[in-house]
């Protein structure tokens, strides 16, 4: 689509959407949000880019093939499920690591649910972009 307005707006909107998608991903543990919705919003940014500037540029902006992103996400989620093996817990048990935690506080809480969610984010991002870009190119 050749629209100057859309192209200029996309430059800002895409960046905003990507940041918002990360925000949604990170707040997802205790509040509405999470990997799925974050991945959807993230995919929207690239879809918008593809509509404004063409799929070739969107693919270039992605740098890697969307399928690879999805499969990497699957791998991340799988590893998150495997982590509890080291502490003898069941598959997919949530394991927590509180970085720099002082007494009473939680510091920076890192956990396998967050890692799993990141995997979901990547799977959704990759899968949606695979479909949408393929459709866009065919039509």
């Amino acid at each position, binding site marked *: 689509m050749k629209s100057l307005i859309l192209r200029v707006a996309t430059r800002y909107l895409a960046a905003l959407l990507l940041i918002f998608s990360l925000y949604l991903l990170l707040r997802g543990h205790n509040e509405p949000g999470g990997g799925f919705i974050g991945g959807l919003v993230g995919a929207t940014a690239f879809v918008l880019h593809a509509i404004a500037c063409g799929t070739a540029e969107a693919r270039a902006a992605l740098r890697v093939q969307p*399928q*690879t992103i999805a*499969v990497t996400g*699957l*791998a991340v989620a*799988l590893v998150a*499920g*495997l982590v*509890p*093996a080291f502490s003898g*817990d*069941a*598959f*997919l*048990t*949530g394991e927590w690591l509180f970085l720099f935690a002082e007494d009473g506080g939680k510091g920076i809480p890192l956990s396998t649910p967050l890692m799993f969610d990141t995997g979901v984010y990547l799977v959704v991002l990759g899968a949606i972009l695979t479909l949408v870009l393929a459709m866009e190119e065919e039509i």
Partner: protein
Amino acid sequence: MSWILVTPLLVPFATAIAAFLLRHRPAGAWISVAGSAAALAASIVLLTAVLQQGVVAGQMGGWPAPFGITLVADRLSAVMVVITAITGLAVALYATAEVTERMRYLGFHALFQVLLAGVTGAFLTGDIFNLYVWFEVMLISSFGLLILGGRPAQIDGGIKYVTINLISTIFFLSATGLLYGMTGSLNMADLSQLIPRVENQGLITVVAMMFMVAFGIKAAVFPLFFWLPASYHTPAFSVSAVFAGLLTKVGVYALIRVFTLIFDHDTGYTHTVLLWVACLTMVTGVLGAAAQMDFRKILSFHIISQIGYMILGLALLTPLALAGAVFYLVHHIIVKANLFLVAGVAERLTGSTALGRIGGLYTHAPLLALLFLIPAFSLAGFPPLSGFWAKYVLVKASLDIEHWIAAAVALAVGLLTIFSMTKIWGEAFWPPHPDGVEPKLSRLTRAERWRLLTPIAALATMTVIIGLFPQPFITFAEGAAAQLLDKTAYVDAVLGAQE
């Protein structure tokens, strides 16, 4: 404890990831073979554990039953997981010779492994909603495999396959929702305890019938089977083989599981319906096959008639009949996948699967002819092959409870099966090729011969072994049937498994 349940699932997923990342290279295909071998090892570990300790259950994420997701393996689940891995390994090896570079690049091996993971997950889960999720994993990957390559016939078959399966999904989902509304639980062991306490037993029967329709579509029983002969003959032969061997059997497994564990409150109604469905499935399937003139279409219709036998075992619901159903499942997966693999080699040698246009296989490729005869005779029920014992047990079970019609149908359908197997023999193997082609095995390169024929020979050997030494397998099936009929071991294992 829970890890031996999880590994048969994790291995195919990890293999899928590796195979996808290596899809540019031939190594991607071999990763798939190696992964399948590892999955086989993991599933044998699981089977041994089940044989030694009885039902094995584990809670995912450490959430106790009935709240968390349960994985559970009794004898039936464990043996199905092993048979899935065996089929997976055979077809993965076969696929190294069949799958083109283009298909590999599009992710054939990754999809194939995800399909195996989905099937394994469906066999292992102890949670009805989780079963739905595994069905979807299976569906999505099977959609991909079915249309990979993109020939118009594949797209055509794909449309029918996808639409009917979507409807089945919807039935499954709404039945699950209603069941949850009535009982407040999704854990299958917990459900089997809660169902007798529901006041409105009529509503339970309604939900049971919805499950029957949902799984009946997956299992391709009468009158819900039309998608199967419309699509199974279109994709690559490796795909046909794994679909024919495993996918419909997941539907049968789900029927057996649900109608022994959860819905046994009104067997007079539900299992009578199942009985008629089973008889009609056998008859229509075999008659459909008799009308076809294409190697793969005949085999597709035979899947349907064979499904009828398994459902018959479930419908009669005696220990012997259920044992027969379990035995039949195992025997059928091996035989059916093998026949499709043979059809693939036959097509390579002769150039078609239309029976009128091929021939000469017996004269020029006697080894292939022998490898066809073993599963074909087994399918028809010739002694001393595995199919004979499978049919024998089921017929005996129906005679034991004096159900003459079922026994008569089972025997008659066996005869008609021989008819269509001899049709394949009489058209594809016996007469000379109409175009004068000499379908010699030497037309394949040495590597191709090795990769195509090893899986076929291995599966045929298993058929013969089961046929010659049936007793350990029948004893095992009887043990599995006993576990299905006496629910306490299963329920205790799940609701007691608080890791």
